[in-house]
């Protein structure tokens, strides 16, 4: 058996190793991670990767509402899941994309205070939602009352991000177009609050499949694979 000191040292050493290697060193190294420039000759592109910083205000709403409980923001490679082949989950909106959407890298989330990669995938993945997103009006309607778009939807209604107000003068052009039982009472209209606008701007900005500098694009899958 051992004495008290070596027992404590044993406990400390057992945990210090993963703590150091898995958390501390990677976290310090991460501070060095920066945007990289595309090489015009090799990549055929100009500018930086990733091209834009995250919309922090909108992401804050996303985080405060806990959207990541049901929506992931992470495309897995094709050997682990079908994510890359889901229709519209990447830049290519064709019904038969030539290649699967690429999986994500650390740099895709550069500048995010905390990347909401997700807890469960109860709703669709939102990594590259910006490419497939409908008009802002439709997203607002979806957020205001998802049941007005899909009656089976289990998404919560974020009505507190919208304002029900009396129509004074001409109706606002920003008012949601709600029909039937979802429509507000006569003489009233539903207007997005600034928070809703930020959230929708954030959702529209979700594009994380820009080409990685120095990496060849994923080889196109044989066209015959899908009929």
């Amino acid at each position: 058996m051992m004495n008290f000191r070596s027992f404590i040292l044993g406990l400390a050493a057992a945990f210090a190793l993963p703590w150091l290697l898995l958390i501390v060193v990677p976290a310090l190294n991460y501070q060095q991670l920066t945007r990289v420039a595309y090489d015009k000759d090799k990549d055929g592109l100009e500018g930086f990767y990733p091209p834009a910083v995250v919309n922090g205000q909108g992401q804050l709403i996303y985080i405060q509402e806990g959207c990541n409980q049901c929506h992931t923001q992470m495309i897995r490679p094709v050997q682990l899941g079908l994510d890359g082949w889901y229709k519209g989950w990447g830049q290519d909106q064709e019904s038969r994309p030539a290649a699967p959407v690429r999986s994500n890298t650390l740099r895709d989330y550069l500048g995010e205070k905390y990347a909401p990669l997700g807890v469960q995938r109860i709703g669709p993945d939102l990594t590259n939602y910006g490419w497939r997103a409908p008009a802002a009006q439709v997203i607002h309607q979806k957020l205001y009352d998802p049941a007005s778009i899909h009656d089976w939807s289990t998404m919560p209604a974020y009505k507190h991000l919208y304002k029900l107000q009396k129509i004074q003068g001409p109706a606002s052009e920003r008012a949601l177009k709600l029909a039937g039982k979802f429509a507000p009472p006569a003489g009233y209209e539903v207007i997005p609050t600034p928070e809703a606008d930020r959230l929708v701007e954030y959702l529209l900005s979700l594009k994380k499949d820009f080409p990685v500098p120095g990496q060849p694009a994923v080889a196109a899958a044989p066209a015959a694979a899908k009929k």
Partner: protein
Amino acid sequence: MDSTSNSPDLAADNQRRAAIDKSVRGPVLFLFLNGAFWLMLSTILGVLSAAKLFAPSFLGDCEFITYGRLQPVHINALVYGWGIQVALGIMLWIMARRSGQELRGGKATMIAAGIFWNITITVGLLSILLGKSTSMEWLEMPKFAWPVLLLCFLAYAWPIARMFGRAFRPEGFMVSTWYILGACFWFPWIFVTANVALHCLPGLGALGAGINAWYVHSVILLFFVPVGVAAAYYFIPKITGQPIASQQLASFGFWALAILGGWTGMQKFMGGPLPFWMVAIGSTVGVLLLVPFGLVGLNHHLTALGKHDAVSCSPTLRFIFFGSIFLPVTGIILALSSAFWTGASIQFTQAWYALQTVSVYGFFSMCAFGAVYYITPRLAGCEWLSVRLIRNHFWFSVYGVSTIVIMSLVAGWQQGADLNNPEYWNLDFMNHVLNSRPYVMARAIAWALISFSNIFFLLHLMLMVAGLGRRSNAPTLLHRSHGHDDTQTSAQASHA
């Protein structure tokens, strides 16, 4: 295990124990009572959040109870309100008893820390409901919460560690106190690391998500598992009267857990943006942990072997026995979600909920219930009132938590199959949503049954703490024990 049980001077020995019990009475009962309150609240919220998952407009489209806010509150109340709180009470009592020391000073500090702990959690959880969630799993409470929680935890951990240090005997074998000391030692370390990384560093992007997953796994593996195992190692020999079956197994199981426990977590995001080696290590270790979990489970089983009569009549042993069955189950579910082969199929599904439930409720809480049923009568000076309440609590918990775990696992498999179903590649998520609905309904029903029994557990505990329990020298047993007919009481007779 208990070297004093054969002491010739039994009366003096009992007095010494009574003195130890008296010295920790206040803090331990405070923690148990508040913990039981949070447990009841958490399970009720479990019903509500499961209901919101299949009927989002249940109780109206109120912003404070959307699933995204409710689910974190449900889990946080379970982890910080019930789990850590009751764990501290159990740790304090077992350490005092095991080291044979009275708690000397710091009782007022402990009570104060307990009060602050509960206030912080109340404010923190309300903040989540009011829309201040950080969306970091198990750390959803706003930034202000963690330093307070850390200090409160240390107000308990430090005296517990001091007791251990004073009583440490190199030749002695005290595996339950090893685990308790480990839990005292590792939790603050994990907690500070995760909070500093996520709140104080300039922003870690996807690495932050990985550290968050590491935090959840580490708290399970290096806090909840050690405390539950410590309770099992303490109470099984104590009640069955048999020594721990194998010291080698116990020692090996402890060090294997200590060495492996800190490596997992990142595999939650397998196929994601994290560096591949992190995911690979987490995945490997997640499977390797089957070894310590299996060995510890085997050791508990061998210790209780031949004493199944005691299991059926002692409430404590019954809860702990089933808790230690859930330990290997926890290991299996962890391995299933860690290995790439199965993990990729159940990733981002309810299987994740199954893992949290089986570890925190199925394993840890069942062991904690057993400990509470043993410790409370000794501190409150009276015996549990009703056999029926204990029995109901046991059966509702066992069936309820098994239902949740099995349903969530099967639902996870179903969700994973739907996500990877090539026929759904161009459809919206209708099939995914509709297919998982029945499992979520089952979860809501199971939580409702558990809540029902937890309400009575809380009431029962309140009566005990108020000193309104049965005045008797005989413990409340679940039914007539063959060797101890004299322990039969009127309360049992009326419920038999």
